[in-house]
């Protein structure tokens, strides 16, 4: 028997609410808002309260999808990254760096957002970086 409460941060928006995921035998069965968190003080919105539900959702994407002959197909990370890198290079050479834009997310960490803007500015040479929270 394995029952754990795992402290983590909500992935839904940039607020950073803390909660415990209630995990029974490896399966997340509930969300418990953290009362000692200075951010949310034991409260959550409806999305946060149900965050454990998407973890085991069948519709969750676990592998990259690449459109081949008009249909999305599961491919390996190597293939997806090679394809993306080649296409980005091609577009940049043909139409210039400002023909490319990057949209990042509130659902990832600060560090991941930092990496993406660095990649956009230093790697691709464009300032076209934006974020879903500004939309």
């Amino acid at each position, binding site marked *: 028997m394995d029952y754990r409460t795992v402290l983590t941060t909500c992935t839904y928006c940039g607020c950073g609410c803390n909660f415990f995921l209630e995990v029974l035998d490896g399966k997340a069965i509930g969300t418990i*808002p953290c009362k*000692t968190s200075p951010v949310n003080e034991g409260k959550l919105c409806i999305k946060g309260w149900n965050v454990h539900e998407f973890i085991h959702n069948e519709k969750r994407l676990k592998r990259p999808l690449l459109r081949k002959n008009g249909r999305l197909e599961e491919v390996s990370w190597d293939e997806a990254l090679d394809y993306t890198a080649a296409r980005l290079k091609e577009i940049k050479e043909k139409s210039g760096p400002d023909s490319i834009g990057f949209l990042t997310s509130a659902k990832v960490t600060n560090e991941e957002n930092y990496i993406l803007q660095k990649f956009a500015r230093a790697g691709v040479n464009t300032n076209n970086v934006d974020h879903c929270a500004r939309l």
Partner: protein
Amino acid sequence: MIDSIKDKVKELLDTGEIKGFLGLVRKNGHIGPHLFQKGDELVDLSLGDNKIAGDSRYPLNKYLMNIAKAYPEETFGVLIRGCDDRGLQALYTWNQLNPKKVVAVGITCPQELADACECLKPFPEDITAGECAKAGEQKSVAAVDALVLSERFSYWMDEFVKCIKCYGCSNVCPMCFCNECSLKCDDLVKSGELPPEIPVFHHTRAMHMVGRCVDCGLCEEACPSGIPLRTLYKKVGSIMEDKFDFKTGMIRGQRSPLNKIDSAEGKK
């Protein structure tokens, strides 16, 4: 107080009387629920007091129901205060937990918490550690009842309109165990409609708290909009006491008047 709790739990775990103890732990700078399965983990046991007494209480009975459903043959210990004890007693009468499979380890609440909660019984029936505080003075319901009807109605409507329909009150409630929830029934509460229709949403929940609410106050603590839900359910509880002489979970084995329909007692 905490040392006698640790000793008691250690004894229960060491003798194998319980498979695990559902309590609170201080970990990573936070207080949260934890299932203690080994005695040496108890060093980080918490009683739910962070900045002030009882500010980090969690509905442990609710989590116990999840564990007990998966492991019905095992016996578990659980940390309880007065309100949790009332909850346990009520859950037994609703067949949500088996009293033979639960070992409650009871602590009392200090007077400041009893007063803040306006708690009628700030201690469990069986106390493992702590001194009994006096019942807190009942003020919140009286204050709202003192308003004239139109003002009272506006007071509640002004509170209910703040609702962001997070369902936190129901999610945190140790007495919300129904498989089918009226608040998620499209005929009563339209899905996707925000704010919810008032006062229907809150009255629906209040109706379902009749004979159920044990006045733990966790709903009000979980409400992001600060709606005084506890006052509302205290009023519901006081009506039950007036009309049926029933106080949820106060008397062991006593079933709610609404939980007697099929029984011989109910037919009388």
